[in-house]
């Protein structure tokens, strides 16, 4: 039972991170129907920026929660800036191009950003400071760590805020309109370019939150973490139904638990195989995902 709970909360933690990254995929896909292949790299850059900011701030004498929050905010700002710039450079000029073009440009961006961090920083694993402090009341709990609690709560809060934003604000309404019909939204006076930029900014900032939290939880990062995390988060988004926000969260959790229990009870060597296998399986049997609607392509 103890082991089961450990795996359960481990899966919940992974799932939360996948969900945070998957939200970015799902929002971008919902609006411009593009798989933002470089999204995993944005997450990685968020983690690196947080590491750098946290180290610099720690030297300046900061510690504790304020350090986590400040480093997290810096990471969010930078990830958002990278996401914004990425869209302007690699996707905006290709908005009317054939579907394959922005996808290839996204892969190019992903390779570029990975190697940019590799060359500017290091190819080795860097140890990431444990920014999340242990709660005193969690001392007796053996199956769950404080950081896991923080990660889960943050994910719930972030998703709730995002849902409120999309449902009740002016910008949120514009986003829903653009997702439904870009041309019509434009005709009705919605600034589509701005909506797309805002989508990238929000999605990237959420990925940064995930990056900071999981890096602090695991304790090390390198330039390659974005690739695997990106594919898995994409799997989560597809699993839940791409374009749907609750779907991304649900998909993240399902994937997190699948991985956690499969590695715990079956074999830890094939951790990634389970995720990719699940992705292939879902795409073949229910390409619309758990919460997604099947849409037929219009001529």
């Amino acid at each position, binding site marked *: 039972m103890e082991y089961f709970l450990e795996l359960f909360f481990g899966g919940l933690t992974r799932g939360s991170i996948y969900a945070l990254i998957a939200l970015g995929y799902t929002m971008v896909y919902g609006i411009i129907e593009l798989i933002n292949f470089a999204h995993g790299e944005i997450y990685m850059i968020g983690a690196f920026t947080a590491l*750098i900011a946290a180290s610099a701030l720690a030297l300046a004498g900061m510690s504790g929660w304020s350090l986590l929050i400040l480093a997290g905010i810096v990471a969010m700002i*930078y990830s958002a800036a990278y996401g914004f710039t990425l869209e302007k450079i690699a996707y905006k000029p290709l908005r009317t191009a054939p579907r394959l073009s922005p996808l290839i440009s996204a892969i190019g961006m992903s390779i570029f950003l990975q190697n940019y961090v590799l060359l500017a920083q290091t190819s080795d694993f860097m140890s990431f400071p444990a920014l999340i402090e242990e709660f005193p009341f969690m001392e007796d709990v053996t199956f769950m760590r404080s950081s896991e609690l923080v990660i889960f709560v943050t994910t719930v809060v972030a998703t709730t805020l995002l849902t409120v934003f999309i449902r009740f604000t002016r910008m949120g309404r514009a986003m829903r309109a653009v997702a439904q019909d870009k041309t019509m939204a434009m005709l009705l006076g919605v600034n589509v370019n701005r909506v797309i930029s805002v989508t990238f900014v929000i999605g990237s900032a959420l990925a940064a939150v995930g990056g900071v939290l999981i890096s602090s939880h695991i304790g090390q990062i390198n330039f390659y973490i974005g690739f695997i995390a990106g594919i898995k988060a994409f799997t989560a988004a597809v699993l839940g139904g791409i374009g749907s926000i609750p779907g991304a969260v649900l998909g993240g959790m399902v994937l997190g638990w699948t991985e956690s229990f499969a590695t715990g009870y079956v074999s830890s060597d094939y951790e990634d195989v389970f995720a*990719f296998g699940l992705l292939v399986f879902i795409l073949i049997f229910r390409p619309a995902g758990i919460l997604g609607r099947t849409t037929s392509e219009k001529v």
Partner: protein
Amino acid sequence: MAIAWKSLTRRAGGEVARSLLAAVWFMFLTFPIMVIKVSPLDKTIEWRWMRMVYVGVGAFFLSFVWRYLLERKETGPDKGEAGSWQKRVGARIRTDRRVFIPLLAAVGAFVLVFPLLFSSYQTSIMITALMYVMLGLGLNIVVGLAGLLDLGYVAFYAVGAYFYALMNHHFGIGFWVALPLAGLLAATFGILLGFPVLRLRGDYLAIVTLGFGEIIRLILENWNEFSFGPSGIAGISRPFTFGFTLTLEEHTIYLYYIMIGLVLFTILVVGRLRNSRIGRAWIALREDEIACQAMGIDKTRTKLMAFALGATWAGFVGCILAAKTTFINPASFTFMESAIILSIVVLGGMGSIVGVIVGAFVLILLPEYLRAFSEYRMLAFGAAMVLIMVFRPQGIISGIRQRYEFHAQTGEGAQP
């Protein structure tokens, strides 16, 4: 006059201001990752301010180039001119026998004497480049002609390599027997992968093939009893030499000629395929799937053919890789390998045979000879993929479309 001058200066001022803004923005953007380097162990920070200056200056000038190119692409007055210039040279080479035959003879002669003129090391690099030519041409069938973005192409490469390595290890099967079988096996894998993903649209297909490639690699890495795990398989036989005993150097030269033969074979087959019934069906499928189905093309069969025929070449090259290096392990078959092959196809020109050959030589030979820059290789590949997609989606050398023109005077059609 004065007004024109004023508007000109204002415009120039605007351009400079925008470039300055871009410079400041990129300096801000790259600040933490480029400038600061922390070492968590001894808790020190290294500030590399000079890099910020480089980024600023670079972004300032590149911003001008970027906007100029973007504007030119949108208005496109020069585009036709540059295109026609290239087209003229291309057409001249293809149609004028006085140019074409000597050129072909010169290239052929150079290719034949290459290993005699250059060292074994150079020949070995050339073999690698030729291998990528084959891989590029194979992937070109799937991506360039059929328009199916396959990011797991390396899986078929691995299938070919491991097939030969394992067959050789367990049963002592030779290269020449394994080569066609490796191609066949890879084609089978292509169909096996193709079946489930047929219904998927372009971007889903990309991710699934990527996942498939990773699964194959992870299995090879972890299933120790089958594939000997991460340590790989060593001592694979070189190609059978029909009774001659060759030194290592002669083996390289031998393999070089094998490669030349195989590349010629590939070019011939892929060229014929492209202009065949199935090749035209691929191109039609790439352009518009629904219209294509309405015209009565069997989508399933056509796509599966593309997967199978594309994978075959990867199987061949995998077999050659195993024979060339006599050692393989799963580390040779990462996603980066797929990305390199994809960038060859994209940069060279999707759908164009000459383009892919040029792309392979540029991307493989350039980093070999510019050793100092080789660590920037992947950075440059990534950037080039973005830039090519934004500014020149047809690649360095665009594919020539078979065109049928109607001539009213003579009443004759069909002119290539």
